[in-house]
């Protein structure tokens, strides 16, 4: 054997890596889909069940006493007001599920990411693949939610379907940021539970979800402004009932959400390289 042999070795390696280099992220997504398949039941039942429950409890139940008190919010019924917020909130919830424990699991308890990295797949592709798989799952969730909103008669505007994008964007904005945090965890001694309690829950409650942000004193309104949920909720409201806000503000919502999503994505990629290639 000679140097010629080595060259063909290298050539064979270069040929073998072309597909993984291009499609690696999709192989990771395929892997995630296979894992998700084991809990399809929960995803579907919760994906239909919880929108129905929330829409009925708040959009119908709570709406009875809100509407009875004579208050209207921006000229629409409480159902129309709260439904897009519930959709946006469902987007955040689903993204939280997928970007918290599953990510921590992949690095630590069930270290599949290490295993994947031993194949031609790069850390960047692992992060991309996880995000792609969540985008698919979130889209399913958001479409289901939107269809149920139609059933409840909560979408007066013809542009309502754009709320699906708003929910998706909100989920990703928060989700990728969360992923960059859970990627750094060496051990879970309750950090994820704390995130749920001190970030996700207050965000849900203080983001103009169940009542307009303006009900709060100014010193509490900032919670809404920095909250991805508020931005995505307001966007969804513009889409479903033409909620009147200046165009620049709508642009700000989009920019903030896209900005956060990209920031979280880039950060998660960096952390993945640092953690898997040390």
């Amino acid at each position, binding site marked *: 054997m000679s140097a010629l042999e080595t060259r063909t070795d290298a050539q064979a390696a270069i040929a073998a890596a072309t597909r993984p280099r291009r499609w690696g992220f999709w192989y990771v997504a395929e892997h995630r889909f296979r894992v998700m398949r084991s809990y399809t039941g929960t995803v579907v039942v919760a994906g239909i069940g919880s929108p129905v429950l929330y829409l009925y*409890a708040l959009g119908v139940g709570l709406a009875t006493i809100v509407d009875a008190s004579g208050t209207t919010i921006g000229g629409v019924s409480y159902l129309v007001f709260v439904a897009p917020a519930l959709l946006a909130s469902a987007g955040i919830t689903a993204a939280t599920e997928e970007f918290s424990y599953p990510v921590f699991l992949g690095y630590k308890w069930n270290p599949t990411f290490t295993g994947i990295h031993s194949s031609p797949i790069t850390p960047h592709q692992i992060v991309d693949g996880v995000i792609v798989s969540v985008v698919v799952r979130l889209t399913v969730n958001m479409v289901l939610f939107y269809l149920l909103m139609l059933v409840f008669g909560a979408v007066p505007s013809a542009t309502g379907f754009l709320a699906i994008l708003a929910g998706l964007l909100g989920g990703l904005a928060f989700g990728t940021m969360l992923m960059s945090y859970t990627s750094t965890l060496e051990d879970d001694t309750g950090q994820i539970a704390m995130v749920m309690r001190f970030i996700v829950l207050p965000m849900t409650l203080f983001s103009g979800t169940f009542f307009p942000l303006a009900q709060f004193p100014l010193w509490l309104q900032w919670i809404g402004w920095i909250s991805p949920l508020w931005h995505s909720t307001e966007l969804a409201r513009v889409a479903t009932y033409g909620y009147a806000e200046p165009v620049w503000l709508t642009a700000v919502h989009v920019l903030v959400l896209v900005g956060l999503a990209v920031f979280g994505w880039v950060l998660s990629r960096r952390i993945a390289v640092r953690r898997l290639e040390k």
Partner: protein
Amino acid sequence: MSAPVRQESLSSAPGRRGVGSLYAGNARSVMLRGWEATRSTNWLVILSGLFEPVFYLLALGVGLGALVGRVTTTTGEQVSYAAFIAPALLAVAAMNGAVYDSTWNVFFKMRFARLYEGMLSTSLGPLDVATGEILLALARGALYAIGFLIVMQVLGLNLSWWALLALPAVLMIAFGFASVGMAVTSYMKTFQQMDWITFLMLPMFLFSATFYPLSVYPEWIQHVIQALPLWHGVEIVRALTTGAVDVGILWHGLYYAVMIVLGLVFTTRRLRVLFLD
């Protein structure tokens, strides 16, 4: 529950078929372990549990309260929206804490951490473990309840001296959910099955007159909700903190008494099958 469960297993433990074979009277040591584990690792998480109902109360009481105005309770009282939801949030917190402690926590220890196997290889019986876990959950529940009642007091949402009795009432609610939760968990095999518990709690949380009176629903939905445990808990606590107490409260109490007994009966029976047969 001292009757032999199955004929063929009689020979394996002659004369030890009573509760005695399950209970060594040492639930204390199980509680002590739980307390030590809590103190050393996640006390902050435990403490943070108090904030959950407070967040709800502040956000909804202030923000939604302005939209809703005053609300009429079952007994016809007109109260502020915050005073209406506060007792419900307290009952919900009792349910959530007790269910978490008796389901996820127990399930994890049973199936994954194999903690109970270690405990049961000592002189402890399964009933010591079960009682210890339930008591620990109640102690934690009491901590949250006291904290939340203080917050209510500060915000002026305790409208009567009866509110003092809300503490034992909350413990009773927690006990009911914990004992049923543990019985249910002992039948569970996978995480996926456990997810259903969470999913069943959502409608109870949303519909049990928590955020608005039951009267907004059609009658048949009202009946379904009245059959579920959380509604009874909400009614008891709301009656106490708003001071609208009447004899009817005893019926709600009876509901919980039955729940506690049934839960314990099934837990004991199931533990015997799991660990002794």
